[in-house]
């Protein structure tokens, strides 16, 4: 209640003011002060003139004044000194100066206040005291925070030697959400830290005065004046830079790419994702990821992506640390992430932090928002294909926030609208749901709960019905031990399942189902002893349980025999330790070691094969049964993660990294594109884990404040990559090892990137040259593909050019353009014709010896925002554009069929025409 008391105090002062003598001469002051305390300033001013200052010392305690004047009017000097501090002043006729925050004191009563007779109608309608609002302008508020001196730790007279650790959170001023990846730094000495996924930072500063600068992509830069006496806390709120209508001066630390120790990391925030034109206006994270250098895919209708020559199953896709096994809807046309809930995406493609493991190529970390902690709000969108709605807000006075997002499609309805009755019996639908709850227990403990669910259903012409879905739940507990150490403990379950069923022919009616479940537990510690080291260590355990397939009758008349491929289970555990060591400000090294152990566990019957002979059902010499929980086979090994950075100059650096990785779970798929009915298989006695290493070297240079460039080269080697024998059957196969062949892979490439940020024109242009080759070198394969020679991988596309650009005409209108060029992917072509069974047939070449035509596509979109009145019911925006605006028929696949006894070749384009779209988005 201090404010109330202060008001009364003000009132009493004001009443004494009265209407005393007016028109006294204003004094002229000569003063030269720099960064002095307010009391010192008052002292100076009071001596210079005959003024008497009235102020609240508690309020002005942290105020520091710099002012220089030579015989200036007193009021001008005062104005100059207080500018931007948020303080107001008022001078009455008796040279009394009132310094107040926020409200200005009226030193005179309104005219005729005492002359009531003249104006009898006016009773006491007018307040006695006029408090004029200083227009609560955000800029001033911000400016005042930037000028205010924050004392860290208990104030002492002498700052002394040693360091103080400053910790806290960086949040969004509007929603209170944590901002991860924000750079918190001081210039001298050069000390820098980056907020973690919770927006938390910890920085060690020498005691004394500092200017702490805070930058984050898409947010206004800010700074804080600090006086560090000891350890302390400071929460910093950042403003969205788009929200302001005034000219934007953004000075986000442009050196982040150059200065950051991380290598081969691509960060895309949700704003960029939403700007990119997309199929039917459905903002799609994975499609934006595909435009990044080093990322390719086999085709545009596939959300499976290949990072630097890795297979699609070598990407770990995490949604708030929950593993998503199938990140797609509608057989891969759309990604399964609701962009209203997503905060940003990070793709690690070369230096993978030691805390991640289990996949060979990359980690795609999708982080979601915590929800607005300040007010309840809703966002949504209505598109051609889907509608989405997201609700978010605080629950109990901001201690708990939630965000709940859902998306659903009305494709069934669209199918009914199609004149061709063939589709009348078809149906396709999907939905996904996200829930995040963040609960702050106290300043040391925070709980995070994430739930995710997706479901798809697809049936074409009343025949086979496909269903699949993800379910994930995770709970995380973050605990701060002290300013130097914190831990995150999490536990969760991930599940993916699918089923395929058909009831068209009653005796054959069947249902095939598959599911994978994993339970994981993770403990992670983060220790920052000083600015030279940042240590993290922890452990990670996953328990897998897979039901590789059950095949059962789906009707009473069905003759289908119930069959089941026995369940598989395994435990994967890893411990890791990593240290980021800043040896000098210019040279730093990040060294990590991860040791992973994988145990394939019973109950299971394992086939034994005749040693040295090709694996086939004929070479099974026996079966060994293992009891429940019995360890069948253990694989283990270290994984080394090293990267280093050397700054050549302020805006140029060189980085080098070396990574080794291991993968114990594999996708079995012999289709070109990943499909929802692909099977995940654990390593077992007959299928060893995939292993690989990658070396990469990068050079980074920033030319101007907003122009970043980089070149990275890499070489990657993979062992025990799985490929398939010709005509391998993967479904319901109880001896899958007879159909797969161990393959060796190698990939190398060079990636160039130019990125323009934070100006009216922003976006990137990238060019990648890469080469990915596979070689079947399994002595016991029996059959070799291409006679054991190297052959290009399905997704090997040597030349890749991507352009993503956005131009802001105004705050309400922006234009986005997207252009893609890539070499056509390799295919196997027929090389000869022959007659058999009454028709012409084709004889295929060796695998992947030819290529489909090159791929070229460009998209355009216009985003129109509604007006920027802050207070209105709903903020809305429209997004309209054209996907594939040149209507180029890019071949997705090429295939040959016999028609009337003759072989005909066809190319199939999935988006073979220009596809216009329009989407309406709202927020209230």
């Amino acid at each position: 209640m201090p404010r109330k008391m202060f008001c009364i105090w003000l009132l009493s002062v004001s009443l004494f003011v009265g209407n005393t003598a007016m028109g006294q001469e204003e004094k002229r002051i000569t003063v030269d002060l720099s960064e002095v305390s307010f009391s010192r300033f008052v002292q100076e001013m009071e001596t210079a003139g005959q003024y008497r200052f009235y102020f609240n010392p508690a309020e002005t305690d942290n105020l520091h004044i710099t002012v220089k004047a030579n015989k200036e009017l007193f009021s001008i000097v005062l104005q100059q000194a207080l500018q931007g501090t948020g303080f107001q002043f008022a001078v009455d006729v008796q040279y009394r100066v009132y310094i107040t925050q926020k409200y200005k004191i009226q030193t005179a009563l309104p005219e005729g206040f005492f002359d009531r007779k003249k104006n009898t109608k006016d009773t006491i309608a007018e307040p006695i005291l006029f408090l004029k609002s200083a227009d609560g302008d955000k800029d001033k508020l911000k400016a005042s925070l930037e000028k205010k001196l924050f004392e860290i730790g208990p104030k002492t007279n002498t700052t002394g030697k040693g360091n103080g650790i400053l910790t806290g959170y960086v949040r969004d001023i509007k929603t209170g959400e944590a901002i991860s990846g924000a750079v918190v730094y001081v210039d001298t000495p050069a000390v820098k830290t980056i907020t973690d996924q919770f927006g938390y930072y910890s920085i060690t500063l020498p005691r004394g005065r500092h200017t702490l600068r805070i930058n984050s992509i898409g947010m206004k830069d800010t700074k804080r004046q600090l006086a560090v006496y000891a350890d302390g806390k400071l929460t910093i709120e950042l403003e969205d830079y788009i929200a302001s209508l005034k000219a934007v001066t953004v000075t986000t630390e442009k050196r982040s790419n150059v200065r950051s120790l991380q290598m081969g990391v691509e960060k895309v925030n949700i704003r960029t994702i939403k700007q990119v034109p997309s199929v039917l206006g459905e903002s799609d994270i994975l499609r934006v990821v595909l435009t990044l250098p080093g990322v390719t895919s086999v085709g545009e209708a596939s959300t499976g992506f290949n990072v630097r020559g890795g297979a699609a199953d070598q990407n770990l896709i995490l949604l708030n640390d929950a593993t998503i096994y199938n990140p797609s809807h509608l057989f891969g046309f759309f990604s399964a992430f609701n962009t209203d809930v997503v905060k940003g995406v990070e793709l690690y493609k070369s230096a993978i932090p030691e805390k991640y493991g289990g996949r060979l190529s990359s980690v795609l970390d999708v982080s979601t928002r915590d929800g607005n902690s300040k007010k309840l709000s809703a966002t949504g969108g209505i598109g051609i294909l889907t509608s989405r709605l997201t609700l978010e807000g605080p629950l109990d006075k901001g201690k708990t926030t939630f965000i709940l997002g859902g998306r659903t499609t009305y494709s069934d309805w669209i199918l009914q609208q199609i004149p061709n009755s063939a589709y009348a019996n078809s149906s396709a639908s999907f939905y996904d749901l996200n829930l995040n709850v963040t609960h702050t227990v106290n300043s040391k403990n925070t709980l995070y709960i994430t739930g995710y669910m997706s479901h798809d259903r697809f049936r074409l012409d009343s025949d086979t019905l496909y269903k699949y879905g993800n379910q994930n739940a995770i709970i995380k507990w973050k605990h701060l031990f002290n300013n130097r150490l914190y831990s995150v403990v999490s536990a969760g379950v991930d599940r993916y399942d699918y089923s395929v069923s058909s009831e068209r022919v009653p005796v054959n009616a069947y249902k095939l189902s598959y599911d994978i479940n994993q339970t994981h537990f993770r403990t992670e510690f983060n220790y920052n002893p000083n600015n030279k080291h940042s240590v993290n260590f922890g452990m990670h355990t996953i328990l897998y349980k897979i039901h590789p397939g059950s095949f059962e009758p789906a009707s009473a008349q069905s003759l289908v025999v119930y069959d089941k491929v026995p369940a598989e289970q395994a435990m994967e555990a890893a411990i890791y330790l990593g240290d980021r060591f800043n040896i000098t400000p210019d040279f730093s090294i990040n060294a990590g070691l991860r040791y992973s152990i994988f145990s394939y566990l019973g109950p299971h019957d394992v086939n034994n094969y005749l040693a040295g002979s090709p694996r086939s059902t004929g070479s099974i010499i026996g079966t060994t049964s293992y009891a429940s929980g019995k360890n069948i086979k253990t694989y283990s090994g270290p994984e080394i993660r090293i990267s280093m950075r050397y700054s050549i100059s302020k805006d140029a650096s060189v980085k080098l990294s070396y990574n080794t990785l291991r993968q114990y779970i594999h996708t079995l798929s012999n289709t070109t594109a990943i499909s929802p009915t692909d099977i995940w298989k654990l390593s077992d006695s007959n299928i060893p884990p995939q292993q690989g290493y990658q070396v990469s070297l990068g050079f980074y240079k920033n030319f101007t404040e907003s122009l970043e460039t980089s070149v990275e080269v890499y070489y990657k080697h993979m062992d025990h990559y799985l490929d398939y024998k010709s005509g391998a059957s993967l479904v319901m196969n109880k001896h899958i090892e007879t159909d797969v062949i161990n393959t060796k892979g190698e990939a190398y490439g060079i990636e160039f990137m130019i990125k323009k940020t934070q100006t009216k024109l922003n976006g990137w242009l990238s060019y990648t040259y890469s080469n990915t080759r596979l070689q079947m070198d399994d002595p016991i394969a029996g059959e070799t593909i291409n006679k054991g020679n190297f052959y290009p991988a399905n997704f090997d596309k040597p030349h890749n050019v991507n352009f993503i650009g956005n131009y802001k005409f105004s705050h309400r209108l922006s234009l986005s353009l997207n252009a893609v060029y890539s070499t056509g992917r390799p295919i196997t072509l027929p090389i000869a014709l022959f007659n058999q069974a009454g028709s012409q047939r084709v004889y295929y070449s060796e695998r992947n010896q030819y290529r489909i035509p090159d791929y070229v596509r460009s998209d355009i979109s216009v985003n129109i925002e509604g007006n920027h009145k802050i207070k209105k019911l709903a903020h809305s925006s429209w997004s309209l554009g054209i996907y594939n605006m040149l209507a180029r028929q890019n071949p997705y696949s090429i295939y040959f069929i016999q028609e009337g006894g003759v072989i005909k070749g066809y190319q199939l384009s999935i988006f073979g025409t220009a596809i216009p779209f329009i989407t309406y988005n709202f927020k209230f």
Partner: protein
Amino acid sequence: MKKSIAVYWLFFLLFTTSCKKTYEPSVITINYNYLVIDGVINANPNGVSTITLSRTKNLTDSQSAKPEAGAQVSIDAESGVSFLLSSQGNGMYTSAPLNLSVNGKYRLRIATSDGSKYQSDLVAVKQTSPIDSLSWSQDTLHKDVTIFAHTHDPQNSTRFYRWDYIETYQYHSQIESGLGLKNGLMYYIDSTTQQYNCWATANSSVIAIASSEVLSQDVISYAPVVWIPKNSEQIGIRYSVNIRQYGLTKEAYQYWDILKKSTQQTGTIFDPQPSQVLGNIHCISNPNEPVIGFVSASFITEKRLFIDRRDVIDWVYTVPGNECKIDNTPANNNFLLYTYPDTTYGPYHFTTGFPNSTLVIAKKDCLDCRRRGGTSIKPAFWK
């Protein structure tokens, strides 16, 4: 607007033909000339085995087939007995009627005229259950007709099946002529010389296979074998098909399955990657030379089915549109003498009576059904 959006949506979702266009592969002109073997060792009592040998051709070759002549082909039993096949021309080699042992194992041995030697793996004789029945149904929506085979094996031993067929259908010439022509003389047509009713015969050109591997009993129900497009001439009058059923080994089934998948793809994104078909025949003289084909030995069972025009619904069949030019020419004094110079025309009928009679003539294609490939002799099985 809504409609057009729906259509766009459809384009990509349902892979309709709108986005499909023909693809001419860049010149793949090397002629590999691999040997191709087609045919089954017939284990039926007094069964005649027919083996066809041909060579692969390159994709741009318009020639319909490249038969391999002059080869020595024999069926060798495991016991050492060998049965030589005789060349029938056109790359076709047939055996004498043989009575192979049910429990025997046989292989095919081939020596081509260029001196290369080939042989298949030894294959066991596979039993084939009889076809229980054939049925057909017409799609209520698309009006096309599908013929299904149904079979079961009480011993549960056949399990893998392949079907092929010979179909025969009756058709008419556009005009029923009363006059025939032989050696420049016309004659009046009777039932033995008629050229209005014809029967065309064709072999199957699709691979029809099925397996009961996952079923508790060896039962095949509604296995589609023949497909007849709507309004096709095949059911213009009366249609008949003789379906032959072959029992397969699992390996043979896999061969046909891969061959079927690699040439009867639907073009969806979830098609398996095409792969080289690997049969059970090897070149002994050059082990690296690929040989195409899979030799099976099996019993063959068969069954016939008829479909009449009146049984199908909404069958809008029209005789293929030859331009039926009809003309007049004055009759000769020897009125059966035919002298019209344009040989694409033939006699149709006379107008009015003798002597000032006029001969009406028409294009031969319209008068004689045999000119479209069929025979005017009613097949023995035709009922």
